[in-house]
């Protein structure tokens, strides 16, 4: 039976893990995702899950254990954040290159130095070229829903690509929300039985997995890996629809909020989108024609769909919770600006970096952005293409 429960982001992930009962969970504790790992350990100790729980000596080994376990032939997940994901970096590429459908929950957190434990997207953005599918969550309910869908996407035979689900560190991982926890059996049925592909446990096949490619084969193998993530969009769409049919909450590549007649638009991901919605409501009540576009899937990037949604607006602000030092804009901005390149009719676009190291972003900050957008829409000109929000300079 579907029930309402008051859970924080970490607990919602752990709850989904209990329901899915992956065959192996290998994870190393790190703030702010520690509680996911602790809760799973306790589930195992209490016999609430029957899969194996491995607590390795580092995140690098955690992902290596995941790779061994997934190659062996079963469903695997992990959870981490920040430095932990950074330490896994080498193995993220290998998980994707070996086409292993591992699922990871990431409580998004800043990267050192300076050391900081709070939420931003530097960690997963740093892994954006690792070959993993990336899905971001606005709140606890979305984190739960995204995590359940992640297994279906990762394991789809046309995709066979690992998926990470981001939930903002502390802001979501540690904030309580009343969420709909679905019926155990229904979740299990939705995720389905795991079907291994070329498992090591088929020992009669005597497979060699992960051999060395020289210049004669590497490129073709990499190309075929890219095909996996290119095949993901229809799968992500179908899984999101089926999730909606089954549980009443449908998901797409992004959410449009009051975009129908919007003249200006703020693009922002994850928890900040919730605050942005409040700002949009207030601005709308003042008669401003502004809307929000909240990307959910960052990899594969739904470039065409986003461009179509934005092309008719008069000005767009892309807010990034990470930076890309020396680049022409932070990650989300560069994607969207590039996506609009092919359109004759396209809005001026501006980038704001916000919230690094967990710095708050409030309704008034979004209102400031809205004001600037209004000016850009009027003049059609972007004077400064990059700005920082709520920063002492």
């Amino acid at each position, binding site marked *: 039976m579907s029930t309402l429960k008051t859970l924080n982001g970490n607990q919602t992930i752990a709850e989904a893990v209990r329901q899915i009962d992956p065959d192996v969970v290998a994870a190393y504790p790190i703030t702010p995702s520690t509680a996911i790992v602790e809760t799973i350990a306790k589930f195992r100790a209490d016999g609430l899950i*029957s899969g194996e729980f491995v607590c390795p000596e580092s995140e690098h*080994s955690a992902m290596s*254990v995941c790779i*061994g376990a997934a190659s062996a032939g*079963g469903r695997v997940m992990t959870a981490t954040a920040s430095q932990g994901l950074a330490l896994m970096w080498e193995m993220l590429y290998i998980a994707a290159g070996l086409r292993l459908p591992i699922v990871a929950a990431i409580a998004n957190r800043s990267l050192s130095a300076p050391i900081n434990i709070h939420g931003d997207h530097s960690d997963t953005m740093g892994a954006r070229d690792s070959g993993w599918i990336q899905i971001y969550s606005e709140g606890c309910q979305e984190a739960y829903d995204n995590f359940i869908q992640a297994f279906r996407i990762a394991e789809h035979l046309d995709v066979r690509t690992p998926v990470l689900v981001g939930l903002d560190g502390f802001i979501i991982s540690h904030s309580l929300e009343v969420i709909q926890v679905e019926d155990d059996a229904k979740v299990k049925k939705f995720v389905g039985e795991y079907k291994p592909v070329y498992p090591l*446990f088929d020992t009669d*096949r005597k497979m060699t997995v*992960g051999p*060395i490619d020289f210049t004669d084969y590497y490129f073709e193998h990499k190309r075929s890996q890219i095909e996996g993530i290119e095949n993901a969009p229809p799968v992500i769409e179908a899984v999101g629809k089926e999730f909606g049919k089954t549980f009443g909450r449908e998901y797409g590549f992004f959410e449009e909020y009051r975009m129908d007649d919007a003249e200006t638009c703020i693009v922002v991901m994850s928890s900040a989108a919730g605050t942005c919605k409040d700002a949009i409501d207030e601005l709308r009540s003042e008669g401003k024609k502004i809307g929000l576009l909240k990307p959910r899937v960052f990899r594969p990037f739904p470039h065409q769909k986003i461009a179509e949604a934005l092309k008719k607006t008069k000005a767009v602000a892309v807010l990034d919770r990470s930076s890309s030092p020396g680049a022409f804009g932070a990650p989300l901005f560069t994607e969207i600006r590039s996506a609009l390149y092919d359109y004759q009719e396209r809005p001026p676009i501006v980038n704001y970096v916000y919230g690094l190291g967990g710095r708050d972003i409030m309704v008034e900050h979004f209102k400031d952005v809205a004001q600037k957008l209004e000016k850009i829409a009027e003049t059609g000109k972007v004077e400064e293409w990059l700005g920082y929000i709520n920063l002492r300079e």
Partner: protein
Amino acid sequence: MAKLKDLASMEDRLVAGHGLCLGCGIPLIFKMVLRATEDPLIIANATGCLEVCTTIFPRTSWNVTWIHSAFENAAATIAGVEAMYKSLKRKGRIPKDKKIKFLGVGGDGGTYDIGLQALSGAVERGHDIVYVCYDNNAYANTGGQRSSATPFGASATTSPEGSQSPGKLQWRKDLTKILVAHNIPYAAQSSPHRWQDLYNKAKKAFETEGPAFLNVLCFCPTEWKYDESQGIRLAQLAADTCIWPLYEVESGKYKVNYKPKEKKPVLEWLKPQGRFRHLFKEENAPILEEFQKQVDRDWEELLKLESF
């Protein structure tokens, strides 16, 4: 006791066609180690000579299930395979009567150095795995850089001898004892020149419940720089000089498996190897003396450990 005739008639699990150097110790070691179990086997191989030379796509020399993922994580990778095995056995998705053995392998680079943490973690967690290190005293795959297993005084490309340096200035890391300190049920040192010793130890390791570690000296004509026909003789000399003692530690109890009737001077092992040639210059006489003293101290300590 296994008979050589029987072992010779077994099917090779590492077959010909690989690109390892002429006179390399690696294939000898693994052909013997892999004969020590007849159960289905899954191997996780660290990046290194063995991995690179046996799996150039689309060919493979492995007649057994094999996986490579990275350099420093063979122990973690095989631990993951073993964890999945336990899980699927419990869930009834692997038949009860199907037994699989799990083997992690790496050179001294992948084991003593970059992979030490993953190995320590895997054996501490008690995975039912065997880990075999082939210790050729250098990063041979990348052209002979120093490792923490490179002997004192050896010239390696990142610890070269020169007018101001007699080669590597540090003593070898004693990895076998580090593994013993993890209180694992079985840890041993062996060498390919005593095939029976190597076979017996590998067999014991595979039969051990829980983690077992085997450190095997692996001669390397390319980086040790000697006549490639002399590998086995050098391995024998390493045991006869007590530079590489053959011993095993079962549940904390030491047993020295080979005690030379007449302990030979270390010079006999050093002399045929080009990597030590500079030690025979007059000014390096103190290095040779220190080498002998340290080997003597280590051997005495090992005998003491055995007598406890």
